[in-house]
């Protein structure tokens, strides 16, 4: 239909050209970074974006060992895994109760969670800072985990309640007749049925925890505890002239997420678009 007319064919080629140019704009910084990460610093200044004249893998060793990236990576992984697991468990339990159990305060509590969708967490950073300090959680990963968990509840509960409500009632009723309790119905019957929604929440919140810069910047003081993005900022201060190592460090920060994205792009896109509309 579109190709009937030769003039339209040329238009289609024009669309491809524009899209390819934009794709190159996206790829240029990433490819420059990859090439830069294996160049010598001298090579980098003579030849900023071309193919490396020799491969200096030692840049990665320097970033990983001397610049503490092994530690930052481990910290990021720890904070991300613990907070995502906590978020999934806490929000799915609450969403299950709010979607399937009738009790007096149900609508009220649900509304309280949903109201959080319009409250930007960062604007409350001053009282949050005072609270974390007074609870003795300053410079602890637990502060980040608790903040991510509290902040994730509105979106996670909003999404999961919708999914829990769609599960046919017969399933749960049959289980009740068989003598299953509330917990068994949640864990054995309901949770497996909402797995796609759990994946959406998990990807969005894991990426948020992994990529976050703001809360670690405010709450983490010692170098040993920093996550990758704030660790990178320390590193950029210390190694300001060692560009090759900076590129290697950037590659270590960026590539794992992009590789995951390439393998699971559909889930990523679903998670990020649904999460960001909130």
């Amino acid at each position, binding site marked *: 239909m579109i190709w009937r007319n030769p003039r339209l064919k040329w238009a*289609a080629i024009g*669309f491809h050209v*524009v899209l390819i140019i934009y794709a190159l704009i996206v790829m240029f910084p990433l490819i420059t970074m990859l090439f830069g990460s294996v160049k010598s610093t001298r090579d980098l200044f003579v030849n*900023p974006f071309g193919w490396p004249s020799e491969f200096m893998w030692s840049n990665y060793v320097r970033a990983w060992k001397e610049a503490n990236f092994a530690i930052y990576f481990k910290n990021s992984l720890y904070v991300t895994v613990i907070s995502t697991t906590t978020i999934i468990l806490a929000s799915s339990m609450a969403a299950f*109760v709010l979607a399937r159990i009738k009790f007096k305060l149900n609508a009220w509590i649900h509304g309280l*969670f949903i109201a959080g969708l319009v409250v930007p967490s960062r*604007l409350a950073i001053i*009282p949050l800072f005072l609270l974390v300090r007074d609870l003795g959680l300053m410079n602890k990963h637990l502060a980040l985990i608790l903040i991510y968990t509290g902040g994730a509840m509105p979106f996670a509960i909003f999404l999961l309640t919708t999914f829990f409500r769609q599960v046919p*009632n017969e399933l749960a009723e049959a289980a009740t007749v068989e003598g299953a309790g509330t917990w068994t119905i949640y864990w054995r019957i309901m949770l497996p049925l909402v797995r796609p929604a759990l994946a959406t929440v998990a990807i969005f919140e894991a990426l948020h925890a992994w990529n976050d810069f703001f809360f670690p910047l405010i709450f983490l003081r010692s170098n040993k505890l920093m996550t990758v993005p704030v660790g990178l900022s320390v590193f950029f201060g210390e190694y300001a002239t060692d560009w090759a190592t900076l590129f290697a460090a950037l590659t270590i920060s960026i590539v794992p997420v992009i590789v995951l994205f390439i393998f699971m792009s559909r889930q990523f896109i679903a998670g*990020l678009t649904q999460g960001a509309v909130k």
Partner: protein
Amino acid sequence: MYAGRKGLGRYSFWLMLVPALLPYLVFKIYPFINSILLSFYEWNGVPGSPKTWVGLANYAKFLYQPPFSTMFWRALSHNFIVFGLLLMWSTGLGTLMAWFLTQVRRGSSFYKGIIFMPNTISIAVTGFLWSLLLNPQFGAVNALLRKVGLDSLAMPWLGDSRLALPTVIAVNVWHGLGFPVLIALAAMLSVPKDVLEAAEVDGANRFTQFWKITFPIILPNLINLMALNFSGAFGLFEIVFVMQGAEAGPFYSTDLVGTLFYRTAFGGMGATASGMGLGAALAVVTFLIVIPVSLIATRIQRRYSVEV
């Protein structure tokens, strides 16, 4: 529904609400309410130091008492410039890209994946990467421009006070463009195919099809994207902090409400900063600016969706 057991067991489901309610109330709701309360006090945040009720004085400082009012209005005007840039570069360019994606037969999911990819990178890490690329002497961007003979375009992108803000926002759009593209694309794909085909039979070219059919249908989604641009401009902090520092240089030319808020709360405003109360007042003002726009956009979107 299933909580039919008698006695205390009837209330056991409350235990399943606690792990969500507790962190939510303590780390999200309480700080938010406390922000409003704190904005009426003058306090440096140090435990045991005097906390004085000052009424609306903190708000007055921001709204019409220099030097804070100068900083506030300058940052606010930058926020509106950023909003304008995002309307063009995020919603505008995003819609255009999405439309191109609907017009090509092959490769659209490949392009979509590439365009969306930067979205998965941390915004702070994106800022660090681009600050190297945009370095005036050794950066790859200027090297590339010189190589293709566009020497006159090789600018000090981040060092010039007129260029710095648009440059930082361009980097932000590089990071985030995938989102408006996907939203606009999803909206365009919901346009009934037979309507477009009927228009084509009647001789409408693809541009007329877009303006007369697709655009009016996707307008509510575009309005929603614009509202997100507005609140997004007020949420910007990391990209400026990473690329231009807490002082949002050169000469505060990239200072946004987000960076001003950070400096007010955590220092960098010099000896005149009175700390926590002032920062809280700025947070409340920001909240009052952002929330009505989001609510109005949701209303508009709801009304249009019913009509279509």
